[in-house]
């Protein structure tokens, strides 16, 4: 393996493709270097649940064959870029466990659309990534296979639920990963691990084949170490899918306006968020710094009001569990999944299999949803929650009449230690700044802006876009990145040789 190939895990997509074009290394060598890197590093991080060596080499062989014919440019925008997928995404021939005992042995018979599109765009599939069980959590601690560790501090969580995706990119194992976000599950781990993490507007990316948590809230998005790589990945996976009737006809080139800068753009700040209880000062300072940098680059900073955003958390913990209760009903031990054998009747088999197959947080949300939808309770919770949803959506519509993008914190604090937050409702507060965006269906992303002064851990700022104007936030992010530099591989894993 060439020296350059060994460096490929640290490269961005354009650098890899330049190396392939110059024949400095082959796609096979990129795949091999990535596999070696994962083998060397992942035991200390535990981002991967499954490494798909054979699938990686098969895809690399296809790309190398195209390069041999001089057709690298026909391989797609992600050609040769290693990518890994959150383990709630079906990929044929892999296990799709959702980090749950319930699906420990479940083999996917089909590809999720986002996975199929990424592979069609030339990405080399490296494996499946750890997550909170069924995406219920903000720390990846609810994974039944054990937590993922934050590459910046192995004693801390990577965030969640897409903790494996964020950690794999932050540790320099892969340049790209996909995650899913229902209330903050892409952005919060992006902030904790210091990588670019994008949750597009609801409908930009097909949900087909992604195991559903909250169908009206879930959205797939990319993790990367640069805004450009994230935008490239989003180009590859976005667009209408005939198999998901909530997906939209999006044809935007998200890389097109990255270099345009922010001169003249109007960026909103939400005073209520900046003064929110529980927001650590080191995080607030970073958001304020980002605002100053943007202003210096020519943007206008404008205060905007989201009067109903405070109710987002309450609405979310009604709507999310209701949809999850119904979505998870199919895991009943009959056709697939964990089955506790030996029961004489269906009812007790259901009860025992689901009691043992699901972890405590999954059981909590299922029971909560079951209660909230039951007769007599529905009108008290579900219906008002939908009304709140309408109000929050109107808030964002109103706010975006005056601004092109909104700047807020991602999470109230930096990565916490394992076991530090054990109370579920405290854990839920991790998503206090991100949830309203899922409720409204807007796009939101986390951009790393350096380390907090107290903890020295990565801090991300959240950029929020109008619905289906996701290019707005990517452009602002690129302008900040141009000043602050691209996201770094976590220091402990960035020194010296990539292996």
């Amino acid at each position, binding site marked *: 393996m060439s020296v350059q190939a060994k460096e490929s895990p640290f490269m961005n997509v354009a650098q890899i493709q330049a190396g392939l074009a110059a024949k400095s290394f082959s796609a096979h060598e990129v795949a091999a270097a990535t596999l070696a890197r994962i083998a060397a590093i992942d035991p200390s991080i535990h981002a991967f649940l499954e490494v798909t060596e054979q699938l990686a080499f098969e895809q690399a062989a296809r790309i190398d064959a195209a390069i041999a014919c001089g057709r690298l440019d026909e391989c797609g925008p992600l050609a040769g870029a290693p990518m890994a997928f959150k383990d*709630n*995404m*079906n990929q044929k021939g892999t296990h*799709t466990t*959702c980090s749950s005992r319930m*699906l420990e042995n*479940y083999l996917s*018979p*089909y590809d*999720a659309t986002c996975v199929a599109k990424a592979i069609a765009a030339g990405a080399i599939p490296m494996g499946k990534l750890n997550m909170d069980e069924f995406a219920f959590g903000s720390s990846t601690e609810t994974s039944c296979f054990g937590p993922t560790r934050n590459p910046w501090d192995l004693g801390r969580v990577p965030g969640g639920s897409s903790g494996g995706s964020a950690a794999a990119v932050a540790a320099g194992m892969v340049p790209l990963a996909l995650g899913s976000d229902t209330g903050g599950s892409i952005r919060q781990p992006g902030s904790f691990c210091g990588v670019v993490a994008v949750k597009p507007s609801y409908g930009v990316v097909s*949900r*087909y*084949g*992604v*195991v*559903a948590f*909250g*169908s*009206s809230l879930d959205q797939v998005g990319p993790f990367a170490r640069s805004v450009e790589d994230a935008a490239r990945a989003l180009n590859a996976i976005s667009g209408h899918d*005939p*198999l*998901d*009737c*909530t997906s939209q006809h999006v044809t935007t080139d998200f890389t097109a306006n990255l270099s345009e800068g922010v001169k003249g753009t109007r960026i909103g700040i939400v005073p209520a968020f900046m003064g929110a209880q529980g927001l650590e000062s080191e995080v607030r300072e970073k958001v304020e710094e980002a605002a100053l940098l943007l202003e210096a680059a020519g943007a206008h900073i404008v205060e905007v009001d989201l009067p109903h955003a405070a109710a987002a958390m309450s609405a979310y913990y009604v709507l999310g569990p*209701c*949809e999850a*209760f*119904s979505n998870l*009903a*199919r*895991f*009943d031990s*009959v*056709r*697939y999944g964990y089955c506790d054998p030996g029961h004489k009747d*269906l009812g007790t088999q*259901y009860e025992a299999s689901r009691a043992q197959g699901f972890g405590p947080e999954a059981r909590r949300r299922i029971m909560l949803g*079951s209660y909230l*939808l*039951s*007769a007599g309770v*529905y009108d008290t919770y*579900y219906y008002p929650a939908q009304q709140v949803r309408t109000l929050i959506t109107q808030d964002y519509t109103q706010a975006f009449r005056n601004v092109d993008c909104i700047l807020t914190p991602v999470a109230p604090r930096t990565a916490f230690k394992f076991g530090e937050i054990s109370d579920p409702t405290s854990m839920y507060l991790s998503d206090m700044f991100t949830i309203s965006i899922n409720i409204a269906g807007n796009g939101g992303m986390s951009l790393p802006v350096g380390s907090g002064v107290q903890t020295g851990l990565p801090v991300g700022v959240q950029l929020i876009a109008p619905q289906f104007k996701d290019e707005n936030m990517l452009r602002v992010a690129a302008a900040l990145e141009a000043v602050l530099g691209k996201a770094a591989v976590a220091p402990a894993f960035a020194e010296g040789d990539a292996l």
Partner: protein
Amino acid sequence: MRMLQEVLKDWEAVIGLEIHAELTTLETKMFCGCKLEFGASPNTHTCPVCLGLPGALPVPNRAAIESIVLAGLATNCDIEKRSMFYRKNYMYPDMSKNFQTTQGPIAFCMRGHLDLAVDGAAAKERIDLPEAVQDGGYTAHIGITRIHMEEDAGKMNHVGGSEGRIAGATHSMIDYNRCGTPLIELVTEPDLRTPEEARLFMQKLRQIYLALGISDCSMEEGSLRCDGNVSLRRRGEKRMGTKTELKNMNSFKNLHDGLAFEICRQAEVLEEGGIIYQETRHWDPSAKRTLVMRVKETADDYRLFPEPDLAPYDLTDEFIESVRKKLPELPDEKAGRFESSFGLSSYDARHLVENGSVAEFFDKAMALAEGGAPDALAGEGATAAGGAEPLGVAGHAPAAPGAAASLAKPLANLLINDLTAYLNAHDGLELAQTFLTPARALDLVRLTDTGAISSKQAKEVFAAVLEEDRDPAAIVAQRGMEQVSDLGAIEAAVDRVLAENHDEVALYLGGKVQLFGFFVGQCMKATAGQGNPKMINEILKKKLGQPSA
């Protein structure tokens, strides 16, 4: 237990129906691209969506939406422009997702009705109505609450128990081929009062669905299923009694008999001071009784909520109008046209349209009678799927009264009486499976009308046509059945008979008029049974002259 007629004197039955129809004429399932096919090998028409695999999502079948809008328009429903799919959550292995996708408070079709013409024996069950009404018939206005769209479950096969029932079974096998089949469920208001009305409603709805071409409506194969809700109250009372839900009424007869039994059973329980439990009961046609399936102590909580994977479904005015244009001529309209164009009685017209293929056959025969080419109608199945102009609207001006119209009544009789009797006698035979064609039916009716054959002979010829694949004229000729209608030949025969029977002629002229029949008989004998009786009568009368008073 008392008889239904007796029970209904004291009690009023309140009946509502829930009728499921599988949209069997569609190519694919409700929310995925799997093929719809009855009787395929188990689990061969399945995919991640209908198997409820993790991550799969539904996509609604637009053709199914068109079918339900057709059904709604044909049953006088309001079409809701904005309706939603809902999830009905319950766990059972035949429903792979453990929720059924159905509709919420607003269905695609709301607030419809059908009017039933109830007469003959069917009207006799309404003993609360005046006798004159019972004899003359009445119209029952039956409200339709809604028609909503939903998906069918898979099929469970319980093994090891008796008769495939779950009781005593050692294990169960599941076939998901049916899972996700588009279903439309029609719910009536509790407006039905007798088992006959329920049966007529079901028959009428079946005729409509068949005319629309949206389902094969096979009660035997379960593509048309009916549950009945029935309760009793004392005559004159307004309060509703406790209802039971009746299942397994998989034929019109079972629907009638099951409801009739249940009404009598409830009356007996109530009359003995018992109480009716809200429960689901199973009609056992062989034992002729209903049995408890399960008791509903509380209403099931299905935790219905809007299906987040499917956006609210908006129907545009253009879409609704485009569907309305596809509406075929419906049975009631067809019957009306048969009355006005061909002078049929309402009874004949109504019975003629009961069977769509018979009505179409009649139309073709009448087109021939009017000198039109039956080909113009051929292949027009008169279903929405064909998209043809409704019969009788385009190109069919009301028939000129006269020759053609005079054939309508005998043609209708032939189809309603003789044909129906023949088909009934040959268990499930279809008109299309016989050798009867519109042209042959018309020929047969003409042969009788012109007196070429007697009505008795016509029956023989009809039976032969059905089975021998030959034209009526050929059968008549082969069997030497043609009536002698040659005036000269008949006159000669009459002269001969009168000459040979002087005494009888004298007696007749002397006032013994009963002898007329004797002369007719002799004349028939003289023409070897083939003389035209009508002509013989006339000529005899003329030649004999007036008997003295």
